[in-house]
């Protein structure tokens, strides 16, 4: 079963079919659509587990849809980087569980089935994006995930949410066009859309279109990832969206740009047709600026979700800096941080969602003293906060350590300094948050009368917080898992 080839394509189709059927199976309360979405995510997660077992067993593998041969049909490809579907499935499942009580409170009842549909379509888009080995297929799945993300931001129906979604839509549409343009140029140069085939045929191509193609791809993907200065759409969209959606957007959707960059690097490094050292230097600098700038703005936020949104910009900075440094340590750190940051940020956003759901407050001053009435949620958020600062033994530590080592390995100690400085700033704003929860008096009597969140909210938050600790203790597992993929990526550069 595990090595049954078509499993890879069924893995993409399961959430797709589950998504489009959700409104049909739904009842008036939305309860049935929730159960349906849970079932779909459980099945999808089981398939992800089987595929990851297989990649552990036999290394990267492919499946060509329709029984054609590779460059002519569409090839799906599963390698160590694709194992990030594990976190996609996990967060998808937990976000759906969390929505059980959250969605009816935040959304009009008619919209609830479509909320689950869009959530599952978003997961479908991400899974397809991650496992495809074809450039145009990548674009198609990117559109599924982008369109559903815009709608999920707007779904609460508040004016501010609709404005934020519109801003996201405009930026996202331009970035998609940029990516399509890059894919078109690569096709014009090679006559192929299969990534492995493009890699082989790219050598000796004309320089100017090649540079523009990679520039267009980078630009588009970095808008999706909200790297400074392309981040302006992110704070509003991520802060105003319903909290489970914020967790998915901040934890996963912004990482799609990063995973797309990894595919791009595989083509660029593998073909040797273009020297990306200039681009990498720029990305390293922009990453460093993102770290500091995102953390700096986060310090001044009073709205807890706004703070978390700026913190995402900062963390994307870490990852992009790791990519740009292009040394083996920094790349391992960056790819593992894609995974760990997803867990941490989902803990924080779902935890914040539970606080907002129970108290109706979303500012630090409004949430003062909430640690007494909601001890489990605030404890989980505190674990998330410690992790994101990167204090050992939590999940955030090892990847940042590796990125810093990578900076030294690449002979750029300055960037390791930027990294530590960013971590200090992050420490400041999370201290403010923890201080508000535990050490400040509630503003009014209402805040102390609230209860702990219901189980469907508390369990996902606690599971994620536990994983933040577990991934800190077992941090070397993902590092050694991803190492062969990074070694393969850097091999054409002479071992990095």
């Amino acid at each position, binding site marked *: 079963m595990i090595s049954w080839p078509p499993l890879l394509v069924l893995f993409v189709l399961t959430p797709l079919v589950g998504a489009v059927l959700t409104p049909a199976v739904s009842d008036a309360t939305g309860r049935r659509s929730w159960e349906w979405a849970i079932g779909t995510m459980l099945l999808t997660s089981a398939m992800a587990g089987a595929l990851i077992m297989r990649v552990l067993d036999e290394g990267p593998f492919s499946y060509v849809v*329709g029984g054609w041969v590779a460059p002519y049909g569409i090839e799906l490809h599963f390698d160590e980087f694709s194992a990030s579907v594990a976190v996609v499935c996990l967060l998808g499942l937990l976000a759906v569980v969390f929505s059980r009580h959250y969605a009816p409170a935040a959304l009009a009842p*008619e919209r609830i089935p479509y909320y689950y549909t869009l959530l599952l379509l978003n997961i479908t888009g991400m899974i397809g994006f991650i496992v495809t080995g074809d450039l145009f297929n990548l674009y198609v799945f990117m559109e599924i995930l982008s369109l559903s993300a815009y709608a999920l931001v707007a*779904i609460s129906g508040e004016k501010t949410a609709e404005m934020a979604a519109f801003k996201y839509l405009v930026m996202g549409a331009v970035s998609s066009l940029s990516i399509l343009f890059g894919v078109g140029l690569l096709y014009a140069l090679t006559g192929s859309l299969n990534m492995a085939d493009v890699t082989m*045929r790219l050598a000796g191509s004309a320089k100017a279109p090649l540079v523009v193609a990679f520039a267009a791809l980078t630009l588009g993907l970095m808008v999706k990832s909200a790297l400074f200065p392309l981040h302006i759409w992110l704070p509003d969209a991520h802060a105003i969206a319903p909290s489970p959606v914020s967790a998915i957007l901040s934890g996963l959707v912004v990482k799609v740009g990063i995973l797309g960059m990894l595919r791009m690097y595989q083509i660029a490094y593998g073909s040797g047709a273009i020297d990306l050292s200039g681009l990498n230097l720029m990305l390293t600098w922009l990453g460093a600026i993102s770290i500091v700038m995102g953390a700096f703005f986060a310090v001044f936020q009073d709205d807890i979700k706004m703070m978390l949104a700026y913190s995402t910009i900062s963390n994307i900075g870490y990852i992009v800096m790791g990519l740009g440094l292009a040394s083996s340590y920094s790349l391992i750190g960056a790819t593992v941080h894609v995974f760990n940051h997803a867990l941490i940020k989902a803990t924080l956003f779902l935890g914040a969602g539970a606080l907002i759901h129970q108290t109706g407050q979303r500012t630090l001053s409004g949430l003062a003293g909430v640690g007494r009435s909601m001890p489990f949620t605030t404890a989980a958020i505190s674990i998330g906060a410690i992790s994101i600062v990167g204090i050992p033994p939590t999940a955030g530590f090892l990847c940042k350590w590796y990125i810093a080592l990578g900076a030294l390995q690449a002979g750029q100690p300055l960037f390791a300094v930027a990294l530590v400085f960013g971590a200090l700033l992050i420490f400041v704003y999370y201290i403010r948050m923890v201080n508000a929860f535990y050490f400040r008096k509630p503003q009014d009597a209402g805040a102390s009368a609230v209860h702990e969140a219901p189980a469907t909210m508390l369990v996902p938050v606690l599971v994620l917080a536990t994983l933040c600790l577990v991934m800190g203790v077992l941090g070397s597992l993902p590092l050694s898992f991803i190492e062969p993929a990074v070694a393969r990526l850097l091999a054409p550069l002479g071992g990095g």
Partner: protein
Amino acid sequence: MKRALTIVLLIVLAAVLLNAVAALPPHGSPDTPAYTHVGAYYLEHGPEETGSENVVTSVILNYRGFDTNGEVTVIVTALMAVIAVLTGVRDAGNRPDTDATHVEPSVVVRFIVRVLAPFILVFAVYVILNGHVTPGGGFQGGTMLGALVIALTLVLGERESAKLIPQRPIRIIQVIAPLTFVAVGLAGLIAWGDFLSFPRDEQLRPVAEAMLVLIEAGIGIGGAVVFARVFRLMGGRS
């Protein structure tokens, strides 16, 4: 100042892009990679390998059928997004009143739409069903069908036009395009071992054609419903 800066930036960008395009393999020349690699293979082997007389169909439904499966999902995602954002609006008072702005279409318009409707319908069905042999197909025919429903919605008035879209099974019909695609793909998986694979034997050609027609019909009907529903939702109807 800002405007001048924008103009300068655009000129620089245009120069870079034009320079890149100028260095591309010459467009239309038979020696470019776009015509000599995968494209050439499709032209050479498409008709015999896929059994489709139309090379475009052999690419979009056979060789790259999985992309088309994704594209119909994009269209369905767009509809789901529109429904999610436009239904269940809590403050209905904010919406423009459809009745107040409603102007009765003229007799001429009503008469012509009613007379043309059956012909548009027949042509749409023709384009859908012949998609695998002639230019056209589910997307094009579905657009015609959708346009027909929109035109009828404009002339028939609220109550009559609501009947054009069946209310009960709508939750299935609106997603019929990806559903038929996946169903036909799974049939291929069960019968011939690969998702979206079609029989390649000469004797089984009618089966392959039937599968293609089924996909085209799904795309056509699903696409039409998407167009019609988006139109109706934007008019504040359900």
